[in-house]
């Protein structure tokens, strides 16, 4: 792999272009969590009673935080990157400079991770206003670091999909068949305890399940069983997925 400090240049390019979209994306990133937290947290939460001794909203927030980072980074590396390759030809001009194709891809993954961090942070801000806060300040900081990691993982995963996508429509397979089911079966909205055994096993294969588990443990300060395994699994998966995404994008970009 040909990676260097030039990854930062690609990030910088994205930052320049972001100026155009910063207002709409901030609005979306603020409105979306409000929907979740108000409808599920307050509306539905009112019927759920105490959830492990706390209001339902406290259960919901850490899961939704991880989900927000996953969604933002995924969409950035699906649609954002695809547009830059096929429509805007940004990659064509990039790889004719000393910036390598590998760095261009890594720069976009870094950027997607940043977008995930922004979404997660905004969601955390909304939660704070609603009175749901991480157990301590350093836990909040740790959570932000974890959001960056989630962005790299899911950004790279989406990048693999983009590397073989013949058109926009192709992304629906990934969002509808992978992202959406993960959203519902990863313990974001309720604990997985009441699932039948095979579904529990299945859920353990979804990276979001582990991301939510870690996020919740960091947020609440309550240790969860198997937390170390979750972290190790996610780190291993991220490393593999990152390497594969760069390799596959190289195939698409260099002819």
């Amino acid at each position, binding site marked *: 792999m040909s990676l260097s400090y030039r990854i930062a*240049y690609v990030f910088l*390019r994205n930052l*320049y272009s972001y100026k*155009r979209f910063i207002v709409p994306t901030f609005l979306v990133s603020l409105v979306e969590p409000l929907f979740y937290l108000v409808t599920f947290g307050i509306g539905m939460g009112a019927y759920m009673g105490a959830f492990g001794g706390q209001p339902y909203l406290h259960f919901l927030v850490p899961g939704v935080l991880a989900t927000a980072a996953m969604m933002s980074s995924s969409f950035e590396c699906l649609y954002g990157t695809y547009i830059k390759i096929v429509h*805007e030809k940004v990659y064509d*001009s990039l790889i*004719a*400079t000393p910036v390598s194709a590998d760095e261009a891809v890594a720069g976009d993954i870094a950027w997607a991770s940043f977008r995930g961090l922004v979404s997660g942070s905004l969601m955390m801000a909304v939660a704070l206003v609603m009175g749901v806060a991480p157990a301590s300040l350093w836990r909040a900081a740790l959570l932000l670091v974890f959001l960056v990691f989630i962005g790299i993982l899911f950004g790279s995963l989406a990048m693999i999909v983009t590397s073989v996508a013949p058109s926009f429509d192709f992304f629906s397979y990934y969002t509808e068949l992978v992202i959406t089911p993960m959203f519902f079966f990863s313990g974001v909205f309720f604990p997985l305890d009441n699932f039948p055994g095979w579904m529990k096993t299945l859920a353990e294969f979804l990276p979001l399940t582990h991301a939510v588990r870690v996020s919740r443990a960091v947020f609440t300060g309550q240790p969860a069983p198997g937390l170390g395994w979750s972290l190790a699994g996610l780190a291993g998966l991220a490393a593999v997925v990152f390497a594969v995404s760069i390799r596959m994008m190289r195939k698409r970009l260099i002819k």
Partner: protein
Amino acid sequence: MGILVKAAGLTKRYGDLVAVAGIDFEIREGECFGFLGPNGAGKTTTVRMIHCVSPVTAGTLTVGGLASGINNRALKMITGVIPQEINLDNDLTVAENLVVFARFFDIGRREAKARIAELLRFVELEAKAGSKISELSTGMKRRLLIARALINRPRLIVADEPTTGLDPQARHLIWQRLRQLKTQGATLVLTTQYMEEAQQLCDRIVVMYQGRILKEGSPASLVETEIGREVVEVRVPPEDDARILAELTAFPCVHERVGDTLYFYCRDGHSLMRKLLELDLPNTLNRPATLEDVFLKLTGRSLHE
């Protein structure tokens, strides 16, 4: 003058398709070297290998003594690329396009600022520094592509059909700028389908066809050796050919029938013209031979699709 680019047996295959079929050429430092050929001849593929964005399948290709390769940053640092497709960054303004590119080449902020001002002046876009790309005409976009290609003060400039889709004014401005760059010492590699462009800019050209080089030389010498000095066109139906040619056996001209026209390639078109007028053929034209005649003779007159 030294050799800057040297190719030997240069080959590019995409699966079973042979895009470049083992070609040899040398580009001298400081000259303008043109690749001419119809669509699909392998021109763009060849220059993409020269500027290190497409891997070489077989053969050798060196630039400044270094082997061309995808990860050869040293070569990319000294090369400026004016692409065929307008791939400016539409999310960025005119100046931002150059600022970001300067970063890609490790050029510091202050140095970049000075160069950008100078380059925008060079391509006459000073007034557009803050404009969006969508607000530019095609000619302005092409000029900005030139400015972008020059941000790293390249020793080698690769221009892939740099004037496609431009009106004559815009085209002449770009030609002037490219000639100016050459006088400043840059080596220029050009691909084009416009014969006038090749004649205006190139010291030497190669004519490519189906991945091979058919001929090499200066534009003038190619015209002289392949066609002669003059061309006489006679627009007559093919049935008349035998009758007309029988009258012209005394003239040392090569002839060719294409569609509705009979072409004669001559050293001296004048006496042939007089004879044709005697024969009372009204629809005749005597003109100097051009690179276009060479091109069509070498690559055939049928459509390349």
